[in-house]
């Protein structure tokens, strides 16, 4: 499916998805409550079949935290980028997609560990790299650590 058709298709599935200009990928901002339902449709419907989540990451955009999903279909080879935003920095949660794409389990743990975005219904949401009793989330823009980060 080419990007124009794909755009129509996504907007018919989630009418309040916000289209974002991006040179490389077709990009949408999805309301957090609709992400999980959309993920199930993206993988199961034959004309979409986005079965390969090739990157899942988080970004601290200062005003909000963002989870970015890079998707590809191994049958149709079309690509799509979805973003989910949470304005609540302390308790904001996004539904997990690791029941849809298994690779998300590790990647969501990484995002939780380093950016502090919680994933609701994740089976094993623990820190993956840092120690369990580490304070704070290092990849946030407001994170300070006088011992471990050397300012030059």
């Amino acid at each position: 499916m080419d990007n124009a058709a794909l755009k129509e298709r996504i907007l018919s599935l989630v009418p309040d998805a916000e289209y974002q200009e991006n040179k490389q990928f077709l990009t949408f901002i999805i309301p957090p409550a609709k992400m999980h339902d959309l993920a199930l449709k993206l993988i199961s419907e034959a004309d979409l079949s986005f079965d390969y989540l090739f990157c899942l990451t988080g970004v601290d955009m200062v005003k909000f935290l963002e989870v970015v999903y890079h998707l590809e279909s191994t049958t149709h080879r079309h690509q799509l980028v979805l973003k989910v935003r949470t304005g609540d920095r302390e308790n904001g949660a996004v539904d997990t997609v690791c029941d849809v794409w298994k690779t998300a389990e590790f990647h969501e743990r990484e995002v939780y560990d380093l950016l502090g975005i919680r994933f609701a219904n994740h089976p094993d949401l623990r820190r993956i790299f840092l120690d369990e009793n580490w304070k704070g989330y290092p990849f946030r823009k407001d994170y300070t650590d006088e011992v471990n980060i050397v300012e030059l």
Partner: protein
Amino acid sequence: MKEIINLPVKNVEEEEYHINMGPQHPSTHGVLRLVVSLQGEIVQNLKPHCGYIHRGIEKMCEKDTYPQIIHLTDRMDYFSAHINNNAVCMLVEKALEVDVPERVTYIRTIIDELTRINSHQLWWCSFGMDLGGLTCFFYGLRDREKILDIFEESFGSRLLHSYYTPGGLMMDVHPNFQKNVKAFIKYFRKKIKDYDDILSGNVIMQERTKGIGILTREDAISYGVTGPSARASGYSCDVRKHHPYGLYDKVEFREILGTAGDTFERYMMRMQEMRESMNIIEQLIDNIPAGDHTAKMKAVLKLPAGEYYQRVETARGELGVYVVSDGNKTPFRIKFRSPSFSNLSVLDHITRGCKIADLVAIGASMDYVIPDIDR
């Protein structure tokens, strides 16, 4: 007379117990800790504990300029150092809309393939060693030395090269480069036959790897497994074929695909990939055009605000670099989607029900590089 104490005898066959594999176990090839639940010697489940070598490279990059970031990418998957460099370089070149000279693209493609052979050689020798064949280790290292010598002659370093820069190469290759690469290929075509003779056809090795640790194509896609480990399951995921970069759309090469998805198939994938890489190099080595070794670049590289993504095929699978730029000389956020991290996530799934000794063989066939997992 001393009283005989009757200790309760536990039936180890029935009781589940845990053992730690790593962080200092030789078969993990680095500081990876696997907590394995066993019943008898059957693996019930396995929990990887990562982070022993987590350096926060992505956070460090937020303070670095793009040419500086190149040096940090070497330190992720250090056996694919050049290919990691290439990912960042191509991302910057794409964002700045710079055309690199043809000579650079040729040299980069050749060196990427030499890197792949180099990495697979090291994988082969440690695979043999993990299964108890120490001879492999010496054979592999002996031949790997030839590639390192070529690298050293051209750019001075043997492991962490940082040879590519945005726009081109740090310096031109040594005048002997073409001659030495051709000599190496002639040499290695003979030696790779020894590899097959000594290990691939070995009965003990085949008994220990065939039918062990089977990964299905569906699971490979779902877990995001890439590289030779996924292609052994018949999953066509070669970035060089599906999203060509460099000269991969101009050279002829086969994407090696398997069917069985077991440990032996993953082994055979890499053996064939080494041959395929040599075919790629042979098509290019005589045709390197003359010219400059770098494009004209500004002193300070500022990426226009926006998002960029670049995928490359490293020796272990797909490396993705995702950059969010706010128009400054440093990235606002950079993410490295490393192949080993996704490949590790499937280990629990494919080792369930196998024996603890098989875990070593499966781990060796997945070819993890720990700094690439932790970053």
